[in-house]
C-alpha cells in the first residue's frame, strides 16, 4: 500500500482536503489533494529525498516549508529551481528532481560527496583541464553535474515573463501576517485605499499554523488560538471594501520609497504607493553541526507547517533543538500530532521560553536537556538518530557526555531572523542588533523607517510575538493614514493609546532584551 502520512484525527484541528489530484514525481504517480503544495504532497507520500544539492549531490528534502530556503527546489513542469513548498499541486503536474542520475534517492553522482576530500572547494570543473585538447569535452560532460538544473524547455508550459500594467494605491502592505493584516485593517478603517500583498495563497502569515491559545490582553485575543485570530482578521480584510488583497504575489523590490515591483505568476507590474508598510516577518536560523543538511533536519516552523497546515505527520520520533517558546510550543504540537518527542536540547543553562509552555510538555514526560547541544546526526537518506553532548559553563563540549538519541526528525528552533533584505534594498538605514534577531531597520516610535513613508510593524523590525505585531500593525496603519491626512484627533489619540499598550506588553522581565534592542533601533521623527 502506498504511504500516506496524512493525519486523520487531530485534537485541535480539522483538515478539510480538496478534491484528489495526481502528480508525477519522476515516473512515480502520487496522490495529492487540491490546496496542498507539491512539497507537502511528496512528503505525505513518504518521499524523504526530493532532490540533490549542487556540487556534492547530497540529499535534499523539506526544510523551511514556507518558501524561504532553497532546500526543496525542483524542476516543475519543465521549469527548474521551483520552490516546491509554496507551489500548489495541479492535476497531472510533473515534478522532477535536479542534479541527479538516475533518481534522487539513488544518485550515482553522489560518489562526489565521498570524494569530498579531493575537492575541498566543491566539485569544480575547471580543475580538470588536462590534456588541454579535451577540456572542451570535459566542460560539456561535467558542467551539467554541478549546476542548478537544466534550462527550461519551452514546450513544457514555460512562458517567459511579460511586463504588464502599472498600478496605483494609497497604502501598500507587504506581507499578510498578524502585523500586515492589522495594519491594513486600521489604515482602511480610516479611509485609505489599501493593497495587501502576500506570496502565499492564504491570508494570515504564520498565524495559520498556531494551534495554541495566545497570551496577551483581551483586545489582542488573549486565550484565543492563533488559527482563529487569523480567520477573524482575514474575514475583516475580505469584508472591507477599501482593501484589495493580492495573493500568490511576490514583491521583488521597493524603489524610491514608493514604487514596488510585483510579480504575479508570469506577470510583472509596478505599483506606485503613497505609503508602504513592510511586514515581511522573519525566517528561521539554522545551526552548525555535523550532517545538518540531512533530510529530516527541519526548521521547527517547517515541521509546524507540515503538521498544522497540511495535516501531515512529520515523523515518528522527534528531537527538538532549542527551548525557546517556538521549540516548546512546537514540541507540544508534535505530541498532539501523535509524534513522540524524545527530548529538547538547549545550549543555554536555562529554558528560554515561558515556563508554562515548558511545564505542559514536561508533564507529558518530555525531557529538557539544558546546557546541551546537538553534535551530529546520522542516517543514509534520512535522519536516523542524533548525538547530543553536554556543554560546560564556557560552552565547551564535556568529553564523555555524548548521548545517542534515535529519532527521524530533528527540529531546529534556535531563533528567528528578520526578513530585512527588502528594506536594505529600499535604502533604509540598518543596524545589527542581536536583541532583535539580526539586521533591522532603524525606526521612529510610529514605526516609520529612515526612508519616509515606509513603515515596519511586526517581526521585520525585531523578533517578538503576534500580539506585539498586531499592536505594531495598528500603529503603522494609523500612522500611514494620518500622514495621508485621513483621520482626525481621535485617530491620533488612538495611536497614542496603542503606543502605550505596546510599552505595557514589553514591560515584563521576559522582555528586557527586546526593550534594550528597541532602544538601540529608535530614531527621532523628522
Amino acid at each position, binding site marked *: 500500500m502506498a504511504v500516506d502520512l496524512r493525519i486523520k484525527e487531530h485534537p485541535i484541528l480539522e483538515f478539510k482536503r480538496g478534491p484528489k489530484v495526481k502528480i508525477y514525481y519522476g515516473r512515480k504517480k502520487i496522490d495529492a489533494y487540491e490546496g496542498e503544495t507539491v512539497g507537502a504532497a511528496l512528503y505525505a507520500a513518504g518521499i524523504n529525498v526530493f532532490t540533490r544539492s549542487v556540487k556534492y549531490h547530497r540529499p535534499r528534502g523539506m526544510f523551511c516549508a514556507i518558501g524561504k530556503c532553497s532546500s526543496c527546489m525542483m524542476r516543475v513542469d519543465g521549469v527548474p529551481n521551483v520552490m516546491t513548498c509554496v507551489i500548489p499541486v495541479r492535476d497531472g503536474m510533473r515534478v522532477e528532481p535536479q542534479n541527479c542520475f538516475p533518481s534522487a534517492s539513488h544518485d550515482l553522482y553522489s560518489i562526489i560527496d565521498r570524494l569530498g576530500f579531493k575537492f575541498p572547494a566543491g566539485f569544480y570543473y575547471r580543475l580538470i583541464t588536462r590534456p588541454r585538447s579535451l577540456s572542451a569535452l570535459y566542460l560539456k560532460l561535467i558542467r551539467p553535474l554541478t549546476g542548478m538544473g537544466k534550462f527550461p524547455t519551452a514546450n513544457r508550459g514555460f512562458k517567459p515573463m511579460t511586463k504588464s500594467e502599472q498600478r496605483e494605491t494609497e497604502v501598500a502592505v507587504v506581507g499578510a501576517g498578524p502585523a500586515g493584516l492589522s495594519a491594513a485593517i486600521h489604515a482602511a478603517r480610516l479611509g485609505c485605499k489599501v493593497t495587501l500583498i502576500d506570496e502565499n495563497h492564504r491570508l494570515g502569515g504564520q498565524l495559520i499554523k498556531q494551534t495554541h491559545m*495566545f497570551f496577551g*490582553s483581551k483586545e489582542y485575543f488573549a486565550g484565543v488560538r492563533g488559527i482563529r485570530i487569523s480567520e477573524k482578521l482575514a474575514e475583516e480584510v475580505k469584508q472591507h471594501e477599501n482593501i484589495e488583497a493580492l495573493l500568490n504575489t511576490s514583491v521583488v523590490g521597493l524603489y524610491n520609497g514608493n514604487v514596488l515591483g510585483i510579480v504575479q505568476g508570469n506577470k510583472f507590474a509596478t505599483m506606485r504607493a503613497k505609503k508602504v508598510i513592510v511586514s515581511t516577518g522573519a525566517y528561521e536560523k539554522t545551526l552548525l553541526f555535523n550532517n545538518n543538511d540531512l533530510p529530516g533536519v527541519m526548521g521547527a516552523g517547517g515541521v509546524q507547517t507540515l503538521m498544522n497546515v497540511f495535516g501531515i505527520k512529520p515523523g515518528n520520533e522527534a528531537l527538538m533543538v532549542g527551548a525557546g517558546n517556538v521549540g516548546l510550543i512546537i514540541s507540544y504540537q508534535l505530541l498532539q500530532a501523535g509524534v513522540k518527542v524524545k527530548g529538547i536540547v538547549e545550549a543555554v543553562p536555562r529554558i528560554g521560553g515561558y515556563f508554562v509552555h515548558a511545564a505542559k510538555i514536561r508533564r507529558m514526560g518530555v525531557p529538557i536537556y539544558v546546557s546541551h547541544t546537538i553534535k551530529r546526526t546520522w542516517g543514509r537518506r534520512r535522519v536516523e538518530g542524533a548525538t547530543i553532548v553536554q556543554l560546560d559553563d564556557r560552552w565547551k563540549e564535556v568529553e564523555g557526555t555524548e548521548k545517542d538519541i534515535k529519532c527521524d526528525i530533528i527540529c531546529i528552533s534556535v531563533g528567528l531572523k528578520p526578513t530585512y533584505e527588502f528594506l536594505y534594498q529600499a535604502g533604509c538605514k540598518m543596524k545589527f542588533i542581536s536583541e532583535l534577531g539580526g539586521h533591522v531597520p532603524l525606526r521612529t516610535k510610529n514605526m516609520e523607517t529612515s526612508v519616509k513613508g515606509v513603515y515596519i510593524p511586526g517581526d521585520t523590525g525585531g523578533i517578538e510575538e503576534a500580539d506585539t505585531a498586531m499592536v505594531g500593525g495598528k500603529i503603522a496603519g494609523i500612522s500611514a493614514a494620518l500622514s495621508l491626512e485621513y483621520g482626525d484627533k481621535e485617530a491620533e489619540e488612538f495611536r497614542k493609546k496603542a503606543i502605550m499598550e505596546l510599552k505595557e506588553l514589553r514591560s515584563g522581565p521576559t522582555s528586557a532584551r527586546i526593550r534594550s534592542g528597541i532602544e538601540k533601533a529608535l530614531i527621532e521623527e523628522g
Partner: protein
Amino acid sequence: MVSDYEKTGVITLKDLEGQIPPPERFKKGPVAIVECTQEIPCDACVQACHRKLLSMKNVISLPILDFDKCSGCAICVGKCPGLAIFIVDMCKAPKGKAWVTIPYEFLPVPEVGSIVRALNREGEDVGSAKVVKVARLSKDEKTALVTFEVDEKLAMEARALR
C-alpha cells in the same frame, strides 16, 4: 539566581508558596490552583473569570486568586493559554480521594469511568486515576476539561494523565 524550574521546566510546591490556597481551604470545596510563576504579558484568566476573582496589577503581573470566593467552576482552566490552572476538589470525592481537573488537548479523550494513569509534573507515573467527568466550555471548544479521581496525597501532584 536561576531557580530550578527555569532549568527543569518543573515547578515545585515551594515555588508556588503564597499562590496556592492554605490547606484548610480545601475542606470547604473545590478551588482553582494557579501554577503561573512568571511575569509574562497575559491576562486571559482575569478576563475569563465571570466573578472577577482573579486580579492583576497590570498585564504582566502574576494573577492573584481570591481563594475564599472561588467555586472551582473551571472556566479559567479552559481559558488559560499556558494550561497552568487546575481545580482540586477534596469535598465531592469519596474519603481519602481527591478530584483533579486538568485541561486536556490530546486524542483520544478518555471516557468517563475509564481507568488511566496519573502523571506528575515531571511526567512520571504516580498512580492510577479514574476519570469522573469530561467537559468542554462550549461545543466548539477543543480543550477538554478532564476530572479524575486520585488518592488524596496526589491532589497536588497529579497534573496530567495517560
